[in-house]
């Protein structure tokens, strides 16, 4: 493992902690976007350029836009007060988990070595459209399910006849006043 990738992973860990513990949600979302951008660089450096492009454009871009939009739709003064103890317990918990993680991963995977040869198959396009063509259909179905899910959740409640009359009366009253 080279120094650049190690630095990127350490930076990503810091940004993940920032995303979780920063009080301002917009800053948290930006930390997450930066983490995704660094992840894209790591993917690119591990011979996966197509996944890197998707990570950068969709995860770092689109999901951040979604987060910022939702943060903007909710009022600033309604921000939830988080409990104080998770911030103080976190360094200890992270250190304990990190140690256990180190021991387990070393015991399980230290003998594994990279294949050391170029990717198998004709090209990425042949793999995506040939080997996994049915999955593309599944992805389209998932996107449609998501779109209709969002539409169903965010639809406006239809007004009853009484509500319409009240709204018209209020409008007329307003016009008479003017």
């Amino acid at each position, binding site marked *: 493992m080279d120094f650049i990738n190690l630095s990127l992973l350490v930076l990503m860990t810091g940004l993940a902690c920032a995303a979780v513990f920063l009080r301002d949600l917009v800053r948290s979302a930006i930390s997450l976007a930066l983490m995704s951008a660094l992840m894209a660089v790591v993917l690119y450096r591990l011979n996966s350029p197509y996944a890197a492009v998707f990570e950068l454009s969709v995860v770092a871009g689109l999901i951040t836009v979604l987060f910022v939009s939702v943060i903007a739709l909710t009022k600033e003064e309604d921000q939830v007060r988080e409990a104080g103890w998770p911030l103080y317990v976190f360094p200890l918990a992270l250190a304990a988990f990190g140690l256990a993680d180190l021991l387990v*991963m070393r015991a399980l995977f230290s003998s594994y070595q990279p294949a050391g040869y170029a990717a198998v198959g004709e090209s990425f396009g042949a793999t995506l459209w040939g080997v996994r063509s049915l999955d593309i259909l599944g992805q389209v179905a998932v996107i449609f399910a998501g779109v209709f*899910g969002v539409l169903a959740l965010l639809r406006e409640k239809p007004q009853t006849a009484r509500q319409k009359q009240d709204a018209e009366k209020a409008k007329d009253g307003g016009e008479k006043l003017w």
Partner: protein
Amino acid sequence: MVTTYLIFAGLFFFIGLYALLTGRNMIRLLIGLEIMTKAVVLVFIMAGYLRGEEFLTQSYIITFIVVEVTLMAVALALVITAYRNTGSLDVRGLARLKG
């Protein structure tokens, strides 16, 4: 070398899980979920790198990202709906919902 990536993947997963378990703000919970997905992507890409099957794992990751975006969109729509109903982003408010 491989071990180091997997250790970091474990750390990302832990940070995300910690946010999910201790957070109260619904948006922050989703941020935690998003951090956990980074761990999954890293493990996937390491598997491909190890076996020399980068094309296949990249296509898996693209599918995973599509599902992830859809999940986030629906989850954020649910957050907005919950905010309209309870007037707060506090996840504990959802325990009081009825019907």
